[in-house]
């Protein structure tokens, strides 16, 4: 049992537990905080895999950006101390059945499947490589998506503004 293993199991346990708490917690703000924990643990997994850039983005954008956004909106729309009533039991059972059966199916297939790893030599996964590839227009270069997403963000921003803006 190496430290890596322990760390992995820790992250894994945190992710699963906090995920479950996120979708079951009866206080909305707590749910948001649990989500934050999940996202942070995920970032931990990325670190564990040595994907620092990804982990950084995860922390900055996800944990920092989205969760904060969510919390703001919670503050705008809900009372902090409001406790949810539990959803109807039949709904929960149906949803759980669907989710569990889907999960069972997926896990079964994942575990049965023999993954074939790539044969080419691995490339080094550092900031330079990421930077190069992000701006490359060659194969395995990601300049185009990087540009296009800006259009998406612009459009999304305008969209969010016209909706959220108090109209006449």
């Amino acid at each position, binding site marked *: 049992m190496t430290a890596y293993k322990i760390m992995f199991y820790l992250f894994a346990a945190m992710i699963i537990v906090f995920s479950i708490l996120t979708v079951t917690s009866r206080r909305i703000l707590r749910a948001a905080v649990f989500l934050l924990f999940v996202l942070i643990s995920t970032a931990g997994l990325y670190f564990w895999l040595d994907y620092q850039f990804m982990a950084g983005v995860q922390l900055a954008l996800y944990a920092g950006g989205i969760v904060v956004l969510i919390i703001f909106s919670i503050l705008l729309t809900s009372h902090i101390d409001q406790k949810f009533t539990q959803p109807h039991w039949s709904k929960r059972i149906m949803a759980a059945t669907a989710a569990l059966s889907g999960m069972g199916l997926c896990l079964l297939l994942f575990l*049965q499947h023999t993954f074939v790893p790539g044969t080419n030599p691995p490339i080094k996964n550092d900031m330079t490589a990421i930077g190069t590839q992000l701006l490359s227009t060659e194969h*395995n270069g990601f300049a185009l998506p990087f540009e296009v997403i800006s*259009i998406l963000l612009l459009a999304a921003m305008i969209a969010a503004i016209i909706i959220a803006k108090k109209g006449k």
Partner: protein
Amino acid sequence: MNLDQFLIMRHELLLIGVVLLVLIAELFIKSDKKHHVIPIALILFLLYTIVGFLPAKTGVLFGGMYQTSELVILFKNILNVAVFIILLQSASWLRKDINHERISEFYIILLSSLIGMNFMISAGDFLMFYLGLETATIPLTALAAFDKYKNKSAEAGIKFILSSALSSGILLFGLSILYGTTGSIYFTEVAEKLVASPLLVLGFIFFVSGMSFKISLVPFHFWTADVYEGAPVNVTSFLSVVSKGAAAFIFMVILFTVFKSLSNMWGDVLYLLSILTMTIGNLFAMRQKNMKRFLAFSSIAQAGFILLGIMGASELGMTSVVYFVLVYVFSNLAAFGVVSVISDKTGLESMDDYNGMYRTNPKLSLIMMLALFSLAGIPPVAGFFGKFFLFTSAASKGYYWLVLIAVLNATVSLYYYLLVVKAMFINKNDAPIAKFKSTFTDRLALIICVAGIFAIGFASPIYELIRKLSFGL
């Protein structure tokens, strides 16, 4: 970026230009003169549309992430024409005071969505595909809620974004599995490395579910009706024509290129989906009273027919799908155009309000009838040809029973289209919709649609052109 690249990507780049120009115009036009944006945007877009038709290069860019072919360009042009018609139709709606503050935003969002679609159908890998898909969808969700002073519109927006987020989550999960089993996100590489395995099938099915959501195939269609009903008419027509057409096209391209070795299986997946879609779509459409909701279900049923073309899995199939989309653009937009005009003038959207309309507004009624006949596939209007070729495509693969079911479904669809015709022509009404004059843009849009409905069917060169550009498995 050199000229060649520009020419290859001219649709996207010019469109971005249009968006920026509109944005600039917005900045420079005084707040009480915002409606001047409308002609500017229309003219810009018209120019862009015309430029799109000019012959230009095709090719692959960004190491395979972006690819285009003459067929793709043709399809983009079809979408452009559709969007142009929609813009024409929306002009008088945008002129209303209540929308005054948000005219240029409307254009920006709509055109951004179109950019997303253009990228989507030009995608050469799953990342660009997914990105295009989201770019096309996310801004649109805001447009669905554009009439934000209306509960229905708000409801449409939230339903759209949440269900589309769920669907893209599932789609993404499927893509991740594809990536895990094949080791690439590029279409060509995936196609090479594709080995059928249960896990791959799972990924594929998740992918299909996600796509089915966009094309609104049963049982992934539930959002459609609510969103179509709640959204402003012009947004609905954009959703039902442009959005759906683009998604269907890229779906077909991906099936043909990436999953060609699975064609046996996806043929059967589509078999099931198309039967479900046509039948359920029709069953729901039968009892609708709200015109937008009615057209929503009708467009669901139409999507089921499109699948028949895809199942042909050949040049013929591809031709028939593109051709059908072309026909569908004009027919459906004509129908939506009429709904939009009436909704603008009177605010009425129920089928019962249309009772006796022929006596007061004969031209609108006739256009509506032609459009519905075209949707139902009645000759001599174009819809007949479109459907006929779709069925030919399915029959060419021996799916005769499916064709039978489909044509019977077309008969059922005729039933509810005729209900509208009946309302307009036959039903008596003491107070039918008053006679009114529609604006220039509305009329222009409808004339284009009607011309299209009549011309496309008989004009075989169009069909032959598409045929020449199409490819099969």
